[in-house]
């Protein structure tokens, strides 16, 4: 009986000890969430200060790793903030960042500013149908990544950055698709397409990437026509057209290089314009227009060839006539 009482008293003492230990950390809910938001802000500052350091050797991105790590940090902070030991939580999650700094493995955690901007812009694309091509979309995208909407301050060009990023993304997707097809043909697993068909498929594939954003595409096109965006948009257009012709098999090194690319640029731009005001099912009118334009170019090329061969024949005829005349008048005789 005495032992029981002694045990009870010991238990009460231990619980008392526990409450004494917990007392400094036991706070009101509001205070706890404030501390957590300070903690999160501190983490964000740490991350941003790391990204301000000059880039180290690796240029590869470890997006998923970085993203998983940051969400892990936030979830550990969140879960441990609810428990009665906030300092322990801070210590548990902070070693993740300081440990990396000390070990010197900057490549794993490190992300350049361009990569961060690219991530934000990619996330912003899903808000474009809602907010248009604007800073609001970028702000919404930044928020889905857990960053504050003030991070839109990084983008001096705003909507232009978003549109150019989207175009660059579409171009690289197209290049991947064309390279894959090229590989298939080289492995003999697919038949090589005729040039006209190849061009039609390439342009169609590329324009179809605009379909999810077709409502707001006129706004994007007008943004691209702003003077400070024109050099970049022209650069993207020229690399697009160069890629398409390269995979179509063009290896010319004379004026044909220029005429082919000029023709394809014309086709692409006019088809894009037709597409933004096309209301037929699945843009069938656009693809018909594209077919007709490519056919026009093919016809023009064959007409040019015919003209050239006719011209050559005419010149030969004239030379023959001149020689005959010289013979007739005796000018050719050696005296």
């Amino acid at each position, binding site marked *: 009986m005495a032992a029981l009482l002694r045990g009870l008293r010991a238990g009460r003492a231990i619980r008392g000890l526990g409450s004494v230990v917990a007392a400094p950390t036991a706070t009101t809910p509001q205070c706890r969430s404030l501390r957590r938001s300070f903690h999160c802000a501190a983490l964000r500052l740490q991350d941003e200060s790391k990204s301000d350091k000059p880039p180290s050797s690796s240029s590869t991105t470890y997006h998923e790793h970085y993203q998983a790590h940051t969400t892990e940090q936030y979830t550990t902070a969140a879960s441990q903030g609810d428990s009665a030991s906030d300092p322990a939580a801070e210590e548990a999650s902070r070693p993740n960042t300081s440990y990396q700094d000390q070990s010197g493995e900057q490549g794993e955690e490190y992300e350049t500013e361009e990569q961060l901007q690219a991530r934000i812009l990619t996330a912003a694309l899903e808000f474009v149908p809602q907010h248009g091509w604007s800073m609001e979309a970028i702000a919404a995208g930044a928020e889905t990544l857990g960053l504050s909407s003030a991070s839109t301050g990084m983008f001096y060009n705003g909507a232009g950055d978003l549109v150019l990023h989207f175009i660059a993304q579409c171009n690289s997707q197209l290049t991947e698709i064309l390279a894959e097809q090229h590989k298939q043909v080289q492995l003999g697993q697919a038949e090589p397409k005729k040039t006209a068909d190849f061009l039609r498929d390439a342009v169609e594939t590329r324009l179809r990437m605009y379909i999810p954003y077709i409502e707001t595409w006129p706004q994007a096109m007008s943004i691209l026509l702003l003077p400070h965006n024109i050099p970049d948009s022209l650069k993207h257009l020229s690399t697009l057209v*160069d890629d398409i012709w*390269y995979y179509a098999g063009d*290896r*010319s*090194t*004379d*004026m044909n*290089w*220029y005429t082919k690319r000029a023709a394809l640029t014309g086709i692409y731009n006019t088809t894009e314009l037709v597409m933004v005001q096309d209301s037929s099912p699945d843009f069938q009118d656009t693809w018909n227009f594209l077919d007709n334009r490519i056919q026009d170019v093919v016809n023009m090329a064959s007409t040019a060839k015919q003209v050239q061969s006719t011209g050559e024949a005419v010149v030969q005829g004239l030379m023959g006539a001149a020689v005959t005349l010289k013979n007739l008048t005796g000018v050719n005789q050696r005296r």
Partner: protein
Amino acid sequence: MQRAAHTALYDWSQIVGPATIRQCLKCKAPARQSSRAYGVIPAPRDTDEREMLHRILRVDHAGEYGANRIYAGQMAVLGRSRTGPLIQEMWDQEKKHLEKFNEILAENRVRPTALLPLWNIAGFVLGASTALLGKEGAMACTVAVEESISEHYNSQIRALMEKDPERYTELLQIIKEFRDDEMDHHDTGLEHDAETLPGYWLLKNAIQLGCKAAIYVSQRV
């Protein structure tokens, strides 16, 4: 049948084995070259290097194209004279050079200069008009042009050697080979009485000035 194939393979490996081992011990640097995938220029590390290499290839291609047209012009006038075969021989070498550069440009997706039609006409007119001055005129034109081109190739070789001779070995090899051919043409021109042309000094300097301008412009446009 299988036994025969087996013994054939066995014999073959006996023959190839020690020889290849000896070969491999002799050659020290094939590994790096094979990892470069048979290209003439290395894969550019960044846009600056890419721009530099493309500029070099573009102007060299324009140069060979122009030289081609100059010889074509000379042949059009002097083709049936005594110097015809000589000019034809030099023209054939230039054709080979142009072919090589066409290959390199196509492989590396280099944009050719937009002034090609201009060099087409200008080259032909230069060749034909100097050939109208006679054999000495044609030779003087050859001397002037080949001297310009050799100087230009030499400065490219210097620039590439300054940057990184090992990285650009194949390109340097090609440029050196072509420069040696152009020097040969230059010497051939001198041998065949180029300097006896009246006004040689004036013509030579005028043509060289024109070549310098052409090189400057072709690098940029």
